[in-house]
């Protein structure tokens, strides 16, 4: 029985791109307990709905997080559209799917890079981020923004993608797929990565369910939970099945994200093939009155936007339940009983997005 000591981890730590603080209670090298504390990047942006017009607030909703940006704006717009009973044009719904899946691709590649970096595999980090630039280029060419797109608006989307451009995007993704497969092979088969991730930070299926895990954390523990299965937007017309891996360790969560890269490529391909012609937006008149829970699937899991309006141009309440918030209880359980040296890999394995979680 060793002596008990407490090691502070964060808020500023080499492995953390964003600040979160964990108090790690150790007994020798073994983590007995991890106590998270947050609040380093809380801005309080939900309260801005009282000061901003509900249409302009889309830009604030998008800036909840710069990685999941587009999907936040989709969730918010979808909520307002449901309250106001607006049906967006089919083309807009398909364009939203395309940009959402591009966001997922860039976010997963970003995470794969950071995960490799946390294990000290710098070459793989650079490879993932090099491939990610392809996604960002397509985003920039179609919306004007690399990480904050601003292309979603209440009632549709702000800009169209020409059919020629869609064809060239499709060709570009087909061309980059072999490179993605090669990188995926390293993540899934490399012996070093296997040793660092297999059996590390296990979250059982029951625990994942009880602790309310979402997204790749839940799917890596064998739970088929994906908000895209609800068929929001144009997803109901697309052939989609979630990636579910049993195991519940860091390897399983990594595998979910690697395989989702190819699901996203497939969804973009389907959306481009089925893209209907027509308008990209409908006029929005009046103000929202009522409430709605809008659910969408972000790269990190299911996000819920609660919106309540009272018929004025300012909403009464906007509340976001982000996937990272839902995954932190799971993280605390994964850390209990692990070795100190594995903490960075386990923390990263839930893909923490503190920008979202604290808003």
């Amino acid at each position: 029985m060793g002596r008990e000591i407490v090691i502070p981890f964060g808020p500023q730590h080499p492995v953390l791109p964003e600040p979160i603080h964990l108090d790690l209670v150790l007994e020798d090298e073994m983590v007995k307990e991890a106590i998270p504390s947050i609040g380093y990047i809380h801005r309080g942006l939900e309260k801005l709905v009282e000061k901003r017009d509900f249409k302009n607030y889309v830009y604030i909703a998008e800036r909840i997080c710069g990685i999941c940006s587009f999907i936040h704006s989709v969730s918010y717009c979808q909520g307002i559209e449901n309250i106001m009973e607006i049906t967006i044009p089919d083309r807009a719904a398909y364009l939203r799917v395309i940009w959402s899946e591009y966001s997922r691709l860039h976010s997963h590649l970003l995470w794969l890079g950071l995960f490799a970096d946390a294990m000290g595999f710098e070459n793989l980090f650079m490879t993932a981020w090099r491939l990610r630039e392809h996604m960002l280029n397509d985003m920039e060419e179609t919306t004007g923004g690399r990480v904050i797109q601003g292309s979603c608006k209440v009632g549709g989307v702000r800009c169209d993608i020409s059919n020629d451009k869609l064809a060239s995007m499709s060709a570009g993704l087909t061309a980059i797929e072999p490179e993605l497969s090669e990188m995926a092979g390293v993540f899934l088969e490399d012996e070093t990565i296997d040793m660092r991730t297999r059996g590390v930070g296990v979250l059982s299926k029951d625990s994942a369910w009880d602790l309310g895990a979402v997204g790749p954390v839940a799917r890596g523990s064998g739970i088929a939970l994906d908000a895209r299965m609800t068929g929001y937007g144009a997803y109901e017309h697309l052939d989609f099945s979630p990636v579910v891996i049993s195991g519940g360790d860091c390897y399983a969560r990594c595998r979910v994200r690697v395989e989702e890269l190819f699901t996203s490529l497939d969804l973009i391909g389907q959306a481009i093939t089925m893209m209907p012609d027509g308008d990209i937006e409908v006029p929005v008149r009046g103000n929202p009155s009522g409430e709605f829970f809008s659910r969408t699937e972000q790269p990190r899991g299911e996000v819920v936007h609660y919106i309540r309006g009272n018929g004025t141009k300012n909403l009464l309440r906007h509340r976001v339940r982000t996937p990272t918030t839902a995954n932190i209880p799971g993280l605390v359980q994964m850390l209990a009983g692990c070795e100190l040296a594995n903490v960075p890999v386990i923390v990263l394995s839930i893909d923490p997005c503190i920008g979202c979680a604290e808003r």
Partner: protein
Amino acid sequence: MSYLKKSPWILHYDASSCNGCDIEVLACLTPLYDVERFGIINTGNPKHADIFVITGGINEQSSVVVKNIYDQIPSPKVVVAVGICAATGGVFRECYNIKGGVNTTIPVDVYVPGCAARPESIIDGIVAALSILEEKRKAMKKGETPL
């Protein structure tokens, strides 16, 4: 760039940013933009750092952390505020928890515009910071105290 004798290392901290600028700062370090060609690498240790790259506005809880990190970086040091939030609080300046830009807590040498700041502008900002760093180093050699 011929006057640059040392390889300046950067330390990046997110004061309360949305991540947009953070991932663009990281993108600068990866193959397409590659600031390592200037000898720049991202370190996690304030004692190793010369350039403090900071994103996002300052909030009640992060101001202490920012001040702490700044004090730990040895002189001469340069502060680069990346993005409009770091300059003024940006779109979040009316939020109840935001005090304002980085200059409310520590002195800033270079402001990089953009929401999110583009990697090209961040590189411009860091290159501007390099010459300020060199001036400060010369001033220190003469026995003056740089800011």
